[in-house]
């Protein structure tokens, strides 16, 4: 079974440039998460999707960050414009939540995209 796929693995951009990250979850997983992980910290949730619906985007800085999950499968996270402080690892995770909204099932993580903003 293929795991969560993310691309690119690494991205270096100059500040004020746009950047996009792509995530393909495990087949059949209905819940998809985007996390931000700064050096020396644990993952912090940015947005959670259940199928194509963003059920929690309260931690997403909406002035510059946007995300979409068309057709409830792949997802894209975008930053426009990027700032120096956005340098971090962006993780995508997915889970199969048969227990309905708000259940706590194992999350499967991708390798992450390491973003460096110069």
């Amino acid at each position, binding site marked *: 079974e293929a795991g969560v796929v993310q691309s690119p693995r690494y991205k270096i951009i100059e500040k004020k440039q746009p950047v996009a990250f792509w995530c393909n979850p495990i087949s059949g997983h209905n819940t998809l998460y985007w996390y931000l992980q700064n050096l020396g*910290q*644990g*993952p*912090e949730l940015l947005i*959670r999707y259940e199928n194509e619906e963003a059920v929690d985007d309260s931690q997403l800085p909406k002035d510059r960050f946007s995300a979409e999950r068309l057709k409830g499968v792949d997802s894209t996270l975008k930053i426009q414009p990027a700032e120096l402080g956005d340098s971090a690892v962006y*993780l995508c995770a997915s889970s199969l939540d048969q227990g309905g909204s708000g259940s706590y099932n*194992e999350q499967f*993580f991708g390798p992450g995209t390491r973003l460096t903003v110069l």
Partner: protein
Amino acid sequence: AQSVSQHNHHVILSEAASLELGCNYSYGGTVNLFWYVQYPGQHLQLLLKYFSGDPLVKGIKGFEAEFIKSKFSFNLRKPSVQWSDTAEYFCAAPGGSQGNLIFGKGTKLSVKP
């Protein structure tokens, strides 16, 4: 505010030493607790989880964790560590919206051969 605290930032042990990593959470609802591990160069993966029942849960690779409700703790243990246990360990508990997890800052474990 809901939070997860991991007491140790970096732990260095020799092989065969016993391990205990501390985790405290602040959450008054239904308890769902997790330990995730990230081996060097690999993805975050689930080590073990507690939802209900026996407060001592066993995970992969000989790890176990004990849920102590009165102390809001979920410490991770292993009787005898191996060099291959070198990794970063993250505790997680419910936080924010229903279904969301809050992760601790992580504890880096270095095992000397």
